[in-house]
């Protein structure tokens, strides 16, 4: 036998107790949607997982109204310390139910369990812990004393990191004192709905977070709803552009985290084995469904052949298959639609004269799969070097001097992230200084931390998420003259016990108890 054909080591699905049908989570309870429900499937097998409610405009209006009520009556009056308590509670519950969330995420999204288990879910908990700590310290967020929450935040998130993007959006919004209506992506609503159960368990006052499911029109209705004070979107540049147009002329604040075509620059003095790992992690992590993926490899011409040869060797050891198997490195492509797009752009690459090489993997019969692929002989004018593929496809380009590397790295309409690989510290600083990208990783790639701001230049969007900067997206400075005189709502002066803030928590508790009997 071959040792490398590791025996199957599947994570058990028994930990999940899924419902057959999920409603919309509005005002602390699951209610039926008025649109036509849709099915969510596992992209690895195309098997049906559950039926999901579809929110129409009336449902959107209900959700926004619930969020407004919760903002006016409960959340905006609560002290920062008490908001922090809820966030800490949510963080701990995410940790307690980590395995369940990881299995749900891999099942619905297709990402390998080792990533949802070791990256996504731990980061989700970290994000809530981090912003829980900020809730009573908003005076230090950089906007002066007594900054104000914005009100109701409409948040629309993508399918590549369903739960993590939810955490990136909800945690700072709640810490800053906003209430939320969030719409997860159509293909990956499952973990957000389990998260809604966690909110019930945490006894979060009803309406503070509302989760509505549906497709693009639901998102459009939410974003354009006049009761919304703030729009936060992560997704494609095309949709981001439409949102920017839609909210232009209103007083809604907007943050957009959009596409990317990041350059991963490898100099000839790079720590080569770690650079190879970093290239792999940069583009094949999460099947390349990463907006900050290092999809353009810029390698110094004198080590091009060696790097490509080593890369091919390394890619040959990647294991593609069942996302729930603990040894899987590459999972399924999230949807048929996305798979088609990856295929189409890859074919364009071949037609443009680039050389395609795909890792030798056995592709399962059902589901959506794409073998890790690298393109060499790619020119800066190639479409595969310009457009975001959002899949496990790497374009390899070369450069001769640091100046050329910087010019090529910046020569893109995007500017979300970049990577630099060199053993020379001074070069890292000099090059990073000139890269127009929101995040620059040095001798690593795709590392995230809640304390580090994340966001883009140019068509990669605006605003920052994470860190102190991420709070600014959900706060405004106190009106002039009030900063010094009015006591801070975030401070301990107005602390009330959580229970007395509103009668509403009682209902939440009831819901939690009902749920509790099931677990």
């Amino acid at each position: 036998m071959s040792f490398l054909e590791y025996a199957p080591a599947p994570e058990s699905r028994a930990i999940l107790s899924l419902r057959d049908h999920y409603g919309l989570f509005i005002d602390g309870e699951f209610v039926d949607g008025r649109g036509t429900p849709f099915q969510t499937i596992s992209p690895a097998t195309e098997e049906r997982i559950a039926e999901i409610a579809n929110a129409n405009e009336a449902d959107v209006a209900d959700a926004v109204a619930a969020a407004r009520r919760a903002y006016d009556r409960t959340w905006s009056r609560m002290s920062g310390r008490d908001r922090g308590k809820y966030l800490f509670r949510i963080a701990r519950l995410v940790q307690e139910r980590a395995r369940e969330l990881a299995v749900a995420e891999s099942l619905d999204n297709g990402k390998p369990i080792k990533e949802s288990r070791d990256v996504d879910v731990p980061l989700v908990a970290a994000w809530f812990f981090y912003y829980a700590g900020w809730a009573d310290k908003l005076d230090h967020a950089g906007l002066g004393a007594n900054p104000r929450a914005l009100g109701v935040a409409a948040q629309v998130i993508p399918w590549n990191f369903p739960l993590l993007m939810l955490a990136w959006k909800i945690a700072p919004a709640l810490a800053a004192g906003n209430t939320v209506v969030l719409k997860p992506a159509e293909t990956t609503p499952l973990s957000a709905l389990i998260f809604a159960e966690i909110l019930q368990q945490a006894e979060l006052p009803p309406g503070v977070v509302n989760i509505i499911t549906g497709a693009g029109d639901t998102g459009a209705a939410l974003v354009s709803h006049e009761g919304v004070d703030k729009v936060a979107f992560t997704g494609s540049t095309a949709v981001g552009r439409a949102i920017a147009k839609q909210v232009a002329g209103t007083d809604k604040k907007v943050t957009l985290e959009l596409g990317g075509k990041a350059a991963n620059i490898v100099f000839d003095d790079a720590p080569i084995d770690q650079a190879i790992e970093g290239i792999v992690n940069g583009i094949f992590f999460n099947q390349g469904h990463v907006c900050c993926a290092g999809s353009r490899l810029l390698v110094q011409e004198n080590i091009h052949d060696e790097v490509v040869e080593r890369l091919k060797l390394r890619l040959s050891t990647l294991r593609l298959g069942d996302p729930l198997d603990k040894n899987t490195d590459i999972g399924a492509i999230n949807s048929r639609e996305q798979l088609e797009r990856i295929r189409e752009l890859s074919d364009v690459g071949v037609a443009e004269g680039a050389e395609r090489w795909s890792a030798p993997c056995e592709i399962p019969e059902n589901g959506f799969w794409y073998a890790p692929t690298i393109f060499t002989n790619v020119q800066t004018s190639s479409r595969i070097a310009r457009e975001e593929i959002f899949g496990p496809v790497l374009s390899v380009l070369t450069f001769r001097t640091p100046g050329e590397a910087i010019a090529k790295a910046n020569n893109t309409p995007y500017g979300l992230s970049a990577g630099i690989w060199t053993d020379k510290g001074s070069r890292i600083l000099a090059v990073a200084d000139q890269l127009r990208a929101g995040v620059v990783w040095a001798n690593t790639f795709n590392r995230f931390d809640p304390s580090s701001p994340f966001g883009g230049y140019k068509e990669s969007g605006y605003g920052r998420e994470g860190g102190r900067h991420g709070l600014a997206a959900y706060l405004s400075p106190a009106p002039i003259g009030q900063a010094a005189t009015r006591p801070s709502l975030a401070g301990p002066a107005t602390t009330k016990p959580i229970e007395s803030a509103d009668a509403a928590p009682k209902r939440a508790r009831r819901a939690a108890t009902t749920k509790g009997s099931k677990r």
Partner: protein
Amino acid sequence: MSGTSLVTARERALAVLGGEPDDATLRRYLHGIAGVDAVGLEQRAAALGTRSIKTTSKRWALDRIISLIDLTTLEGADTPGKVRSLVAKAVNPDPADATTPRVAAVCVYGDMVPYAVDALGGAHGDPDDGLISVAAVATAFPSGRSSLEIKLADTAEAVEAGADEIDMVIDRGAFLAGRYGQVFDQIAAVKEACRRPDGTSASLKVILETGELVTYDNVRRASWLSILAGGDFIKTSTGKVQPAATLPVTLLMLEVVRDWHLMTGQRIGVKPAGGIRASKDAIKYLVTVAETAGEEWLQPHLFRFGASSLLNDVLLQRQKMTTGHYSGPDYVTID
């Protein structure tokens, strides 16, 4: 088993280095090798450590670990009796289960070699034939602080007494002082001393003592240096210095032998030694070998564990897989 012949090793070193292996040439070569990023290396090792090896794969791995062990006793208190006990354990690791494979070798101090050879009797030979080799530590093990003459005499005596493999230590002081030529010459001379009158040669394992080299850049350079000078195996540690073998260090050394193989076609062995006590950890090493150098490295001439207590833990795991029950330390033998 026979090692690489000295002449070809020296010729190849000259060809690779492009000059005599003096301090300046070696420095140019070794410092020209790409550096190691410690954070990235440790992340990769940790990632390899998360592989989940179950059922049939685990069964295979446990047996393979046993057949890759250099069962070791390196105590000041070693006696002929202790060595005989060790050898008996090596030949028959689990008296309750005859399907248990034998270990690859026993590893002892030079003066214990005759007793080991004697105790092995007909079981003495090449692990590829299901037999057990005798490995001897030499060259003023573990510190290596002695004159070259004494190191060579130490080596020659062990080879003459029947040792199949010599585990030498490099002069870490010379290495850290930048006297690479001296380290090279000593390894080459010990390699020469491994030669038997009939023209065959004992296999040479070169111990880097990574715990004293400290940085990963040093470990990588020492690995290249040892291979260039003719070592058949590179070994992490004596077991007398902490930290001994770690997964990142072993991964790094495996990357070196992989690169050497790509460059020259020659396969060099790797031996992590010291501190590997649990089956679970040993399986992580097997994964690292298979996914770095390749599965063909999982054989006694290319990979070894230097260990003593590891064997019993593997036997307990093996019994558990066979019977479905965990037993306890009284159900495996002490050596």
